[in-house]
């Protein structure tokens, strides 16, 4: 009956039917099933501007280097508060137009950072503008390409009032009298990035990360004494938090970038023996000086211990000699701010 060796019809037909059947089971049906996903209640659809930003994201194929998935393993906790869920992609992964399908946002290479929560991690528009023009202005070691074609170089006199001027160092320009102006495309792209943050889950139903083995050791420690020892040993590392949250703008060496982000090295606020201003800025953000970009607050992202660690890191490095602060102080100021806003 199955004489495949001599019957080409049977051979081809069998291999086609079995393959198509398996494909339906393993790909087409699960795919249909995944489409039934509904968005989370807190999620909002993309605005027209964000949608155009997503198109630019696809056009420049950012997917080649940036993932948008927080895997359910603890090492990915850096990129989001919870593992990604199918609902997260409800609005962003829709067919783009007649020619192009739903974008492959999850990605397969993490040559650059994951962008699931980039809006929380890097809320500043100024930073993004400089970074898109040439990433090495703000992150010296970056290997990301610059996107100068998303900007226009204009003569000072031609700059209109509505134009968004980007403070690019003069040596990178063709003509010293030129100004770099952002195009609508790059503004849309940034708007899209600023929409990328994980929506909160209703109730306590958040899926958990598969914990790393290290954590497990701590919870299974037999005596309470052990617990305290491990806990202090693994207390928040100020240098690490600084590198992850602050260095993108204030730079690795704490010197900031002239015309964009203020220096922390030698800063009067950081060296001040009154700790209040520094703690407040970290918690609330800062927008008091027109010559610098806007800083957002980190009250939601960092806990008291982490803020203490990072503030002390700033106070004891790059020649700074500020007095050390304690988590108690941070806690107090956080509470007073809370009261104030009520």
């Amino acid at each position, binding site marked *: 009956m199955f004489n495949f060796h001599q019957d080409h019809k049977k051979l*081809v037909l069998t291999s086609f039917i079995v393959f198509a059947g398996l494909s339906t089971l393993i790909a087409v049906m699960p*795919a249909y099933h*995944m489409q039934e996903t509904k968005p989370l209640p807190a999620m909002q659809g993309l605005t027209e501007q964000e949608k155009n930003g997503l198109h630019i994201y696809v056009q420049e194929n950012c997917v080649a280097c940036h993932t948008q998935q927080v895997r*359910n393993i603890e090492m990915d906790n850096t990129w989001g508060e919870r593992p990604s869920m199918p609902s997260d992609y409800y609005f962003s992964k829709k067919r783009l137009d007649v020619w192009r399908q*739903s974008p492959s946002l999850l990605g397969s290479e993490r040559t650059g950072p994951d962008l699931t929560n980039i809006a929380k991690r890097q809320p500043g528009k100024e930073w993004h503008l400089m970074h898109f023009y040439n990433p090495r202005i703000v992150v010296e*070691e970056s290997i990301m390409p610059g996107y100068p074609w998303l900007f226009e170089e204009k003569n000072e006199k031609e700059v209109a009032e509505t134009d968004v001027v980007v403070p690019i160092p003069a040596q990178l320009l063709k003509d010293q009298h030129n100004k770099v102006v952002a195009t609508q495309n790059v503004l849309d792209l940034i708007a899209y990035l600023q929409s990328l943050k994980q929506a909160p889950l209703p109730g306590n139903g958040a899926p958990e990360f598969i914990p790393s083995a290290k954590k497990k050791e701590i919870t299974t420690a037999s005596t309470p004494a052990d617990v305290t020892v491990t806990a202090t040993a693994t207390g928040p590392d100020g240098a*690490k938090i600084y590198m992850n949250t602050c260095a993108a703008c204030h730079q690795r060496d704490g010197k900031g970038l002239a015309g964009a982000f203020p220096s922390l090295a030698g800063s009067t606020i950081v060296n001040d023996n009154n700790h209040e201003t520094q703690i407040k800025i970290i918690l609330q953000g800062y927008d008091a000086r027109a010559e610098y970009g806007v800083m957002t607050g980190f009250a939601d992202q960092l806990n008291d211990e982490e803020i203490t660690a990072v503030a002390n890191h700033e106070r004891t490095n790059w020649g700074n000699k500020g007095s050390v602060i304690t988590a108690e102080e941070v806690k107090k100021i956080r509470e007073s701010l809370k009261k104030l806003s009520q």
Partner: protein
Amino acid sequence: MMKKKLPQFQTFLSLNSLLTFIFTASGIGATIFAQSQPNPSTKDWAMSPGIIGTLILILIVALVAIMILVVRISAYLESLKKRSILRKKIEFSEELIGLDEAGIDNILEKRKAALNYRLAGSELGSEQQATDNKGIIAKVTHDPHNPMVDEKKKSPLNLETPEPLKTLVIWYLGAAVFWLVFGTLVGQYVGMKFVWPEMDSVSWLSFGRLRPVHTNTVFWGWASMAMIGLGYFVVARTSNTTIHSYKWGWTAWVLINLSVVVGNLFLMNGLNNGGGEYREYIWPVALLFALGLIYTFLNFYKTIANRCISEIYISNWYLLGGLIWTITLATIGYLPNFQNGLGETVIQGYYMHQGVGMWFMTYTLGLVYYYLPSSLNKPIYSYSLGVLAFWTQMFFYTLIGTHHFVFSPLPWWLQTIAIVFSAGMFIPVVAGSTNFYMTMRGSWNEISKSYILPFFLVGVVFYFVGSTQGSFQAFRFTNYVWHFTDFNVAHSHMTMYGIITFFLWACIYAILPKITGKEPRQLAVGVHFWLAFVGLFAYMISLMAGGTLKGLNWIEGDPFINSVILMQPFWLWRAIGGSLMFLSHLVFAYNFYVMIKKESSSTVSPTNELQPVNA
């Protein structure tokens, strides 16, 4: 961070510790059990079965390379030895000439008695001149072209090939060679951007846009065109008939080339399908390619249906299977109905994996089932193993696409199936590579005499190593360390280059001289082989080592930018390996030109070469 990790890495690389790993109690059984726990400790990362397995596999490749080298060197040493014996003889006779007369007399006196007895002089032959009446001796020389390595065997006499088939195959291969050079030039450029990100600031040449140009060109331009061209010869030859329609062959040639040209222009212009790997071409462009495949499939099918022998040769199973599966795959990959939300992600895993497995791998195996035995001039070891590999390839390969999305928000059961059946891939891989190995067995000495077989050998070894390593990589622990890192890139070059490209080169060198009657220069083939092989090795090892360190760095929770800094030297080595690979392609293009150029004097013509040699 780097300083902390590097010593650990070096210790781990040492052969000693490797052997210890193999013999420790945590053998494969225990460790497979261990990876069902989803939260491994990274302290013992080097003990993970996937990582140990991969290291052993790389070691196998290194050993084979050393083996080839040793065979070559020993052949060379042998020739040196012979020459030194000859030299000694000459020295001896010169010494005799130099003796004074009294000395000579003395010796002659001593020998006189012994020499009294004389043969008539014609016992072992006659005084006739040696002649070769039957044309057995092709060439006699005491002055080889290249004293460094063994002279390789010439290709046997031409195969009779219908002129239109010959032209078709040459044009397919010609287009393939062009796309190989272009595609890898782009690849090399993109690789250099990791080291010098500011090489240009032109939108059409930016990394994001060029990367898919590289992958799609080498996939659909180089490999696919070469595969189809080589397939035309196999189908006609093994069916003992002529191709159903040359016109369809040409139509497909135009369609596929057109899709690569238009698709690349679109990509560079910023028009892509959404960034899913290997389906970056938008659907109208992909449709051109799919139509090309449909023409090819119908043409092959009708030719095989018209065969003049009752059995369908095993190669044709793979060729027809590869074509019909890929047509199905392209249809599913581009149908819009189920691709919103994570539906697209399920299809992406399925599509990118099957694109490699059902098209490149299946089809190329079919080519090897013909070209390997025919260049060894013996039958394939086992027909049944080939059949087993065919069905298991279809069954297991189809189910494992989601292993590209382990720990992602895709359903856990889908991920588990993918991991389990990835391990199942051992069956077709072992069946296939055993078959090729057993076919080659007993002909090892041919390796030093042939310029084709080293390519086959590397392909076979990488088929086993690359595929098995891929299965290891699907395990959950190895995903912790390697996923999202440059290790993936190393793996894909190990397979698409180490397996597919080396096999295709072997097939091209095997068949072209036979249908055009012109052979490439052997030294140039050797240069091609070694540049490509060494380049691939440098490329692979640097990205594997760097990728591992990067993954460990991420698990450690270091700031992300540190992993970028850590990769810098590895990216440089990758670019160096890539340059060697690209250079080898230029040499290959030259060899191709030599094999097809119209007027040539390198044709083997027995009458010219057979001249008496006065030794």
